[in-house]
């Protein structure tokens, strides 16, 4: 208390001598340094805590995702009898694609286990092979019809349960009734392993296929393409609109009641829950304009509405931060208002605008709620070829997989999260790159 009093006196330069006030400063110096140290400590602690959490998140997600990048395959030798596949020898792709490859696989697989005879056992045995094996052979035959009549070794996926067993996710010591894989299947699998027919390979399906109900056939490609198209539409619609709105409001618009109302509303719009935009999209784009459900076009438009306020706000503050001297210098040299903006102000504001855009886009990339309303939360197998094809997006795919009962979807969920994070990192890196290119010092 007395300390404070003397310091105050010293500051005001009252009756006390300078020696006295110097003393007081020296006395309080230690305390003030300690306060600063403490403050820095809090900051470091906060950052440390954040890094720990992030590290924890990444390690759990990546740790869980790692098994999803491999898939247990069987190298099965099959004989492609012409009478089964193409009895008339026409090599017509229509005939080839409808042939009964299932029997061929069954035959080849049962030949490996001549001792399995009962119908029930055969059923259990055949369950070990993924239903996708049929399509694997079909694709090989369609690609190369000369294989017909040959005996070839084809690599095909094993079912998700066997895959989980191979990855050690299923405890072999549990009682038989408590696990998905039966004792007999484990014994058969071990026999296959001993013969060297089982191989664990990189899971390319995960990156090339669309969604599937069979975890071993499910891929992220469809959702990734959907996200790409959606983001493209969002960017094309929201960026030019937001930037022109921001320029008008910041540079041209008179300050009156109208512009003030608009400004308040833009700020409010940024805080509207995203599901509301979904309802708006349903009412306007789908019901009124008759646009297709589940299409990235509609998703992109809805998300564009959602990101507009974010970009407008960021763009306005970026424009505001351009020093008036630049504008005045340009005017002084005889530039028209439009020239001042397009040649000088906008390029200088661009880094800030881009940062705002990326934040908005990153938000949009992670949205699922508004997409529910417009039918993008759906099971879609075909990979979308354009923004009008039905598709889903990455966060929706994560949600659908996280909600699936099959255990093998757990690791795929984490892997899909990794892909989403990679998307985000890519977007951020490109933003940094663009910012570096546009950045100008003054």
């Amino acid at each position, binding site marked *: 208390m007395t300390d404070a009093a003397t310091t105050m006196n010293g500051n005001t330069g009252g009756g006390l001598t300078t020696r006295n006030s110097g003393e007081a400063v020296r006395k309080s110096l230690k305390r003030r340094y300690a306060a600063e140290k403490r403050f820095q400590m809090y900051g470091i602690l906060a950052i440390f805590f954040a890094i720990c959490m992030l590290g924890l998140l990444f390690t759990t997600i990546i740790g869980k995702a790692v098994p999803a990048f491999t898939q247990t395959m069987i190298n099965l030798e099959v004989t492609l009898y012409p009478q089964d596949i193409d009895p008339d020898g026409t090599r017509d792709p229509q005939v080839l694609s409808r042939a009964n490859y299932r029997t061929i696989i069954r035959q080849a697989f049962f030949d490996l286990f001549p001792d399995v005879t009962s119908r029930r056992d055969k059923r259990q045995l055949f369950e070990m092979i993924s239903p996708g094996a049929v399509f694997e052979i079909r694709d090989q035959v369609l690609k190369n019809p000369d294989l017909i009549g040959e005996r070839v070794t084809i690599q095909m996926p094993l079912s998700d349960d066997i895959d989980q067993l191979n990855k050690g996710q299923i405890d072999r010591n549990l009682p038989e009734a408590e696990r998905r894989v039966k004792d007999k299947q484990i014994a058969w699998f071990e026999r296959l392993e001993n013969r060297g027919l089982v191989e664990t390979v990189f899971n390319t399906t995960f990156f090339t296929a669309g969604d599937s109900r069979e975890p071993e056939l499910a891929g992220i490609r469809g959702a990734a393409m959907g996200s790409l198209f959606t983001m493209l539409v969002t960017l094309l619609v929201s960026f030019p609109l937001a930037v022109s709105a921001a320029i008008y409001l910041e540079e041209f618009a008179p300050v009156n009641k109208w512009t003030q109302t608009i400004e308040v509303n833009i700020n409010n719009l940024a805080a509207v829950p995203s599901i509301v935009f979904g309802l708006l999209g349903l009412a306007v784009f789908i019901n009124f304009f008759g646009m297709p459900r589940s299409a990235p076009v509609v998703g992109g438009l809805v998300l564009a509405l959602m990101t507009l306020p974010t970009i407008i706000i960021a763009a306005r503050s970026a424009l505001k931060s351009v020093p008036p001297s630049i504008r005045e210098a340009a005017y002084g040299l005889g530039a028209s208002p439009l020239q001042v903006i397009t040649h000088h102000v906008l390029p200088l504001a661009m880094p800030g605008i881009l940062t705002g855009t990326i934040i908005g886009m990153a938000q949009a990339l992670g949205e699922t709620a508004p997409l529910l309303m417009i039918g993008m939360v759906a*099971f879609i197998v075909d990979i979308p070829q354009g923004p009008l094809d039905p598709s889903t997006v990455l966060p929706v795919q994560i949600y659908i997989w996280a909600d699936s*009962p099959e255990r093998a979807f757990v690791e795929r969920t984490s892997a899909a999260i990794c892909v989403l994070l990679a998307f985000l990192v890519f977007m951020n890196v490109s933003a940094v790159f663009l910012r570096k290119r546009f950045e100008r010092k003054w």
Partner: protein
Amino acid sequence: MIRKSLAIAAVAGMALSMANAAEARDQIRIVGSSTVFPFSTAVAEQFGKTTKFKTPVVESTGSGGGLKLFCAGIGAQHPDMTNASRRIKKSEVERCAKNGVADVVEIKVGYDGIVMANSKASPQMKISRQQIFMALAKDVPAGEGKLIPNPNKTWKDVDPSLPDVKIEVLGPPPTSGTRDAFAELAMEGGCKKIGWIKAMKKTDKKKYKAICHSIREDGAYVEAGENDVLIVRKLEANPKAFGVFGYSFLDQNADKIQGSLIDGKAPTFEAISDGSYAVSRPLYFYVKKAHVGSIPGMKEFVAEFTADKAFGPDGYLTDKGLIPMGDAERTKFREDGANLRNNIDL
């Protein structure tokens, strides 16, 4: 550069607004129940891979939401089929008819058991439906004609034979079809064993339903969202809690959780399919007859769904957790589907 991007945006905007999907679709669209979703998608995938038709798009909107979309009208912008984990209601049939959707084919696909399960770390529970009602109802009867707010804190308070553990049940929220079915089959099933409440069904149906279907809101029943996987995880973490969800999740996680015996019956595949396990419900999908012909592949899709290789006892849907119907019922619905018989009779 800015002028150019503005021009691009204008062109893009125009192209987008021209994109009109009112033209015919070549792809079936299905909406509806999240419980039927895994089965419907499995059939859709199989159908897309084995026929010349495109893979149908299946949306998970919930039974009620699906029927609302389905009944909204006829035309390519409306879905062709909807899944439901309950039967269509009379009000929904009327709504459909009002919007021109007069001819609807009902296909029952099989059954789904609703289980009450807990972690394997705790002993298995043997419980009756009446005890479930007494443990989870909002108001419980205390003597003839009198209701009091549920005072039961532990299972032991409900019945001395039950364990001395706090009542904690994780289950789906009211928007879920699973919750409706649980309330109807387990809660009401137990509720109507009480004489005077049963008598009320005839005199005051509304009150009867309110008593039997209301689940307590004092924290003993925790709404855990529509995500059944989440409930399973929470059960693992908390061995004292119980969860309510579909049979397929028990089937996939049998190493970690166990189903409680309800009225002396364990929720097994056999007990649900022969009807001896009390808490099971039928699953349906509905087909819009007016779209058959204009949307390609609808009849073939129904045929794929109702083939024995799909919804039969050895079909691929049983592997996804569907409990198949008996032979007679399967044949009936397969024929109804093939002939597109207008078979809704409420």
